[in-house]
């Protein structure tokens, strides 16, 4: 009984850091960075032959998402939720997450350039390029592992949405007569993540306002 309650208390304390919606918005923006060039290409607003725009849009969105994550955690979450350093197991798990992210970023970079330079072996009957299939599988693996190690259950849903986005878009393009498959798929996958992120973020801001005199409280603890 003792162990169970302490464990539940630790879990509650740890999970409180996901109440800010910042990870949700970060992941939503990353997925948008993949989808937006494809959508704009569908509308004929950018061309994959000119390399700059398809490169620039994900770059801007990825950097923006990363800055939002770093500064959001620092200037929005920490003043409201405070700081806590968790035990060895959590630290070890976070090291795993960092390692997974580094490997994933490297693989993502390689895949991105393979896609960009059309070095795409087309796979089997589906007609989906191999790098796109790898992207889907990799997303599913990476986000599911992150969800497991971070104890962040919403991430399992995002893993699924992330994983299906690109392969489904390509499949629809090659096997259907839909006018805007990218718009359809990325609306169905990205919008839910961003909406969840916004709702959680607004709830968090309302639930945890910054109290001006808290620093005085900090001073008065001793």
């Amino acid at each position, binding site marked *: 009984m003792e162990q169970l309650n*302490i464990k539940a208390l630790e879990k509650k*304390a740890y999970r409180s850091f996901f109440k800010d919606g910042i990870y949700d918005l970060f992941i939503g923006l990353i997925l948008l960075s993949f989808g937006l060039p494809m959508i704009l290409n569908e509308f004929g607003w950018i061309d994959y032959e000119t390399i700059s725009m398809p490169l620039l849009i994900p770059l801007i969105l990825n950097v923006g998402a990363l800055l939002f994550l770093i500064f959001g955690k620092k200037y929005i979450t920490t003043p409201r939720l405070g*700081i806590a*350093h968790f035990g060895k197991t959590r630290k070890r798990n976070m090291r795993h997450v960092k390692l997974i992210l580094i490997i994933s970023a490297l693989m993502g970079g390689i895949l991105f350039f393979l896609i960009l330079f059309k070095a795409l072996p087309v796979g089997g009957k589906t007609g989906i390029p191999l790098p796109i299939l790898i992207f889907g599988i990799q997303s599913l693996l990476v986000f599911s592992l992150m969800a497991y190690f971070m104890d962040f259950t919403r991430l399992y849903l995002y893993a699924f949405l992330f994983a299906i986005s690109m392969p489904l878009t390509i499949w629809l393009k090659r096997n259907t007569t839909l006018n805007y498959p990218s718009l359809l798929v990325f609306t169905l996958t990205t919008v839910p993540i961003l909406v969840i992120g916004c709702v959680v973020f607004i709830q968090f801001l309302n639930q945890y306002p910054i109290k001006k005199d*808290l620093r005085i409280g900090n001073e008065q603890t*001793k």
Partner: protein
Amino acid sequence: MSKQSKSDTKGLNRLLGIDKAIHEPARLMIIATLSVVESADFIFLMNQTGLTQGNLSFHLSRLEESGYVAIKKKFIGKRPQTMLSITDKGHRTLKEYLNTMKDIVDSFVDS
């Protein structure tokens, strides 16, 4: 005195031996929360326990006096930061407290 009532009295007497420094609900919440983290700051503890600033300051001082909580103050740039952690003595006392309370509750339930 019957064997049963002797056992009840013994159980009740154990209640008298409970450490009052952590028996108080607010302090128990604080120490239980600190027991699941390596360290935390004042804001985190306020959010987790739901205590007001004044209440938390008061109870933290009491726990520090008892040697159950360590309070370290430092500056990050110009901002003061107070990090709180449970001491080894605090860990031991919390464990003993939980075991004692469990025994007492079990003895009442069993009898």
